[in-house]
């Protein structure tokens, strides 16, 4: 009996140090309060009495209560917030039971049946294995998941209930398993009911987690889109400033240009005058074009026009949309941006000497919106494109958005022209 008490108390003391190590985050004053020491000593006395005097059937329950008491005391000593402390207590209990079950199972598989649960070797071995596994698990958990973690009030009650579901059920199942291994009778019917209810609870929690996770992901997605739109708008404003400066300089320059043309015409140098006029027209048409009232759409169309120009691609854009369109402008931008990118890529793949042209029409027909984009492409590509792994990623995004808006997507080819048409219905206010 004394050996039992010594074994239990030594494992208890190791556990105290282990918990202290886990909760330590470097910022806590290492001075231990007297209150904590007294409480830990009381718990040790309870352990000693429990091991030597209390009947075997009640012993495990008191052990659990003492363990919970110890974890809470040490957590409180380290100023861990209540909800986090509850969660970690449940996790530690689950780890305890996992370690004990593991050690009992290992012992049984290696040395059973010569040594029963009451034998000295059983107690020494199982406690030893439990402590080794527990030390490894807790140190591992600390180093992997809780390194440099400062505990703050971050858990909500529903999150706590959800996150605790699996550890609680684990504790219940492993507890009953251990009791049966130690030949202690339990009320089987109640236990089964508990397990079934626990599994139900666990599944509800998983649903809650799923719901939370998806809404969280949606929010992240939304924030990313908003950030992108914001970036685009900022860039657009910068471009507007640049445009204003360009317009000012063009105006300033215009008089001088007229004088040059007048001079050339005076000298009857028509060809030079024409050439000079064409150059002037080019410089006037390089500023930003306002296709619609939507700054993001304007920005995208202007940017894509620049890319097309760099790639020597003729890009005709016609936009007939009112400010009544109700599609979120970032969604609209993704839709149009992807469609143009696909066309630009297809045109860029054309061999030198072939005509490079893209035509885009965005037209609002009453409350409906029709987007029509067509480009020249190489018909021979249809065969080779199948092997292109990442091809059509943009198209998938486009199709997803069209589906979300219950619209129609159609793509087809006509000779060497590739067409995509999108119809979105009822997307404008009255």
């Amino acid at each position, binding site marked *: 009996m004394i050996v039992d008490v010594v074994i239990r108390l030594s494992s208890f003391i190791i556990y105290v140090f282990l918990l202290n190590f886990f909760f330590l985050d470097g910022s806590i004053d290492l001075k231990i309060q007297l209150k904590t020491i007294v409480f830990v000593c009381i718990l040790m006395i309870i352990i000693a009495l429990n091991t030597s005097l209390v009947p075997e059937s009640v012993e495990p329950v008191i052990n659990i209560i003492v363990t919970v008491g110890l974890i809470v005391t040490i957590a409180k000593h380290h100023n861990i917030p209540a909800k986090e402390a509850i969660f970690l207590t449940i996790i530690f209990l689950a780890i305890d039971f996992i370690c004990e079950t593991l050690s009992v199972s290992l012992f049984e598989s290696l040395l059973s049946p010569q040594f029963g649960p009451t034998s000295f070797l059983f107690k020494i071995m199982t406690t030893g294995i439990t402590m080794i596994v527990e030390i490894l698990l807790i140190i591992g958990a600390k180093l992997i998941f809780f390194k440099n973690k400062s505990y703050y009030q971050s858990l909500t009650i529903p999150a706590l209930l959800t996150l605790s579901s699996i550890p609680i059920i684990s504790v219940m199942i492993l507890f009953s398993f251990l009791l049966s291994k130690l030949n202690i009778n339990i009320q089987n019917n109640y236990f089964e009911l508990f397990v079934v209810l626990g599994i139900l609870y666990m599944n509800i929690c998983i649903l809650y987690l799923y719901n939370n996770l998806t809404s969280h992901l949606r929010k992240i997605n939304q924030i990313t889109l908003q950030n992108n739109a914001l970036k685009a708008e900022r860039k657009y404003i910068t471009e507007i400033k640049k445009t204003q400066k360009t317009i000012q300089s063009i105006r300033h320059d215009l008089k001088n240009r007229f004088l040059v043309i007048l001079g050339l015409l005076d000298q009857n140098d028509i060809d030079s005058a024409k050439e000079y006029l064409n150059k002037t027209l080019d410089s006037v048409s390089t500023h930003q074009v306002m296709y619609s*009232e939507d700054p993001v759409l304007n920005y995208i169309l202007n940017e894509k026009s620049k890319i097309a120009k760099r790639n020597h691609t003729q890009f005709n854009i016609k936009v007939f949309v009112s400010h009544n369109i109700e599609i979120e402008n970032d969604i609209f931008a993704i839709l149009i941006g992807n469609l143009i990118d696909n066309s630009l890529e297809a045109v860029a793949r054309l061999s030198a000497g072939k005509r490079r042209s893209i035509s885009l029409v965005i037209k609002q027909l009453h409350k*409906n919106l029709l987007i029509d984009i067509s480009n020249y492409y190489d018909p021979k590509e249809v065969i080779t494109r199948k092997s292109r792994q990442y091809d059509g990623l943009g198209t998938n995004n486009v199709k997803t958005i069209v589906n979300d808006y219950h619209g129609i997507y*159609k793509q087809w080819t006509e000779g060497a022209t590739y067409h995509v*048409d*999108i*119809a979105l219905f009822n997307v404008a206010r009255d």
Partner: protein
Amino acid sequence: MIKVAICDDIPEMTSQVEDLLTKYDSSLFHCDVFLTSEKLMRSLASTDYDFFILDIELPEHSGIDIAKLIRKSNYNVPIIFLTSYSQYMPEVFEVQTFDYIIKPISPNTLFPVLDKVVKYLNLDDNHFSFTFNRISYNLKLNNIIFFEKRRRQVIIHTLTGNLIANMATTTILNKLDNSFVQVHNSFIINPRYVQEIGNNFVILTFSDQSQEIPISRKFKHSARDKIITQLRNEI
């Protein structure tokens, strides 16, 4: 012949447009040229034009003002604007512009627009003719919203009311051009009035009313394909 009104205050520009229209098809267009907005506005009271080519930047009344006046009496006639700037103007949308061409005008910029206008005018002018109870009807296709088959009869829903006739579905389809779409054994719709498409229904709106029409599985894919094709003809 297609009657065209051209309005621009620069005579060289109107001559160029006229020349290009003749080059497109020497016998297709009859052109009336106006160098001031007032003259065209006065002429609107007495002459019906099939489409308009208007300069936006006119000295007194702009091309947009003319378009607003035209729209008061005719919502569907195509209006094409000529402009020097490709800047967005909300008014251009408000007057239901068919298209715009950025100056300088050339066959490359004008001819595709003329292709569309000719196609649109042909579509706009088609009729659905039938006789019922010894009365002959000649309905403009644009005014027909949908056909509803009920046994041997067909109810023709139009903007001005419903008409009944005895006709088989194949007969109706043969009388119609490709602009109408069969979405169900009992329904043939005009895509121009589509407001919403669901998985198995389509909502048509007309004169502040809405009508839900079922789409059967048999016609689902072909209907969606034809609807988008028809809408494309309107751009």
